[in-house]
């Protein structure tokens, strides 16, 4: 399985021209609240190509998280279509891994046991992932993110940054095709965040999975992504896309170079004045 995902990356270049891994076509999403319904997304079009890291940026409350719920199959669109590998998503497909701003680890489980949680439920359990295999993979991941020492520690013994590393590893332990990250570094201090950017880059090289990263930090978006999509305020839609051409892995100093800041400035412009872009 490990090798299968790795080979996906190698063929990523060819697949970009082919079928996107995930595609949104004219998607609208309406939440029915108790008193009123809110339109979270409207006429949203977006492709996620195999092997890429796509960052989605936008103001808070613009429906970025709804995007992830749609890809994962937790929520179905009100209209339009969400397709994975060309097939409409009608239920959770079990091909995604997720991490959020809160690490939300289980406090009674050690780091290793927390990592293994996704292999104990749902399709992974029913497909009979062998335990020894999963444990070996978990240890590999812990080594990748520099947490080998913390294998048998409880979450309360870990710092916020370490917990978030565990959460990232948990999101990829079952070898998902698609890694969905919802502001995973939002609650960390600036230096820990920089560290974790490095961790995410390493994890991505290691697993080769496709990543959708939701963030409101433009530097983070440009630093990590191959492509950045800008969402309008609610109801959300994609109003702008920018490619980030820099080679990987990237280095923190690149953030201050002019070609880098040119991209962030351009993106910032499209977030502050969505109306101009729409017209």
């Amino acid at each position, binding site marked *: 399985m490990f090798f299968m995902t790795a080979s996906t990356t190698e063929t990523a270049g060819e697949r970009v021209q082919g079928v996107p891994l995930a595609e949104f076509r004219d998607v609208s999403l309406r939440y029915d609240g108790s008193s009123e319904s809110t339109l979270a997304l409207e006429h949203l079009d977006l492709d996620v190509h195999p092997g890429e890291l796509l960052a989605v940026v936008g103001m808070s409350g613009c429906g970025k998280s709804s995007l992830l719920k749609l890809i994962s199959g937790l929520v179905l669109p009100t209209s339009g279509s969400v397709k994975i590998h060309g097939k409409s998503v009608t239920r959770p497909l079990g091909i995604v891994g997720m991490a959020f701003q*809160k690490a*939300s680890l289980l406090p009674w489980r050690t780091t290793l046991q927390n990592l293994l949680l996704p292999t104990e439920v749902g399709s992974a359990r029913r497909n009979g992932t062998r335990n020894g295999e999963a444990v070996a993979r978990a240890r590999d991941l812990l080594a990748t993110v520099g947490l080998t020492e913390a294998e048998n520690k409880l979450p309360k013994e870990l710092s916020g940054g370490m917990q978030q590393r565990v959460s990232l590893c948990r999101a990829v332990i079952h070898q998902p095709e698609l890694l969905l990250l919802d502001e995973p570094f939002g609650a960390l201090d600036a230096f820990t965040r920089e560290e974790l950017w490095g961790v995410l880059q390493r994890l991505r090289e290691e697993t080769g999975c496709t990543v959708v990263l939701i963030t409101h930090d433009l530097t983070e978006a440009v630093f990590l992504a191959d492509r950045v999509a800008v969402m309008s305020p609610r109801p959300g839609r994609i109003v702008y896309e920018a490619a980030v051409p820099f080679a990987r892995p990237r280095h923190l100093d690149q953030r201050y170079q002019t070609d880098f800041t040119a991209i962030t400035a351009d993106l910032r412009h499209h977030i502050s004045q969505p109306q101009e872009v729409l017209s």
Partner: protein
Amino acid sequence: MSRSRRRERLAPLITILAFFALWEFGTRLLDVPVFILPKPTDIVASMQRWWSPLQMHALHTLMTTVAGFAISIVLGSVLGLVVGYSKTAHQALYPLLIGFNSVPKVALVPILIIWFGLGTIPAIITACLISFFPILVNVATGLATVPQELEDVLRSLGARKSELFIKVGLPSSMPYFFASLKVSVTLAFVGSIISETVASNRGIGYLMIAASGRFDVPLVFAGLFVIAVMGILLYEGFAFLERKLTAWAYR
């Protein structure tokens, strides 16, 4: 052991000793009659004199309490799980349960006596009725604390509701469950003694009523002592279990 740790350990002992010393000398100094407030030494003497009946009645009360509490653990956790698991069950059952809980249990004892006669059974039932509600509320609350993100993570992998319940909900409700046990067990104790004082011919509650009928005030206090000691032991026992079994929840 550091000095501050030792002071922490000794502090409760010193308070208790000071309490009894004050009591002893206060009653001696003011010459309080024994049938109003006996001195601690009178009470100890009475405990020695009546040791074997005290022991017998205390043991009976303990068994009544444990029996009632055992039922209440089952009843409380089952109802708590149902109410915490299903929103519909929560809405359907909660008003009834709250109404039931707000009825003072002493008021139920006469009815229980009509149904079951004098003795042990009303005491067991009272102990159970008075102590199951905190368990229920805590288990239900514990189940409701599962973070939404984690639910999303697992549901996106195709986890069933039952898997979420077993892997996440149930264990996360454990600290709440054990915290409620130590509170509830003292309540169960209150329940069985209430019932014994109203209508029974055995148990520490009965012993105290009988003693007060004879104006044997030192023996009434001896009963109170025994109750207090048993209460502390039960509380500490469950607090110990809590610390052992859900250590992960404490910093």
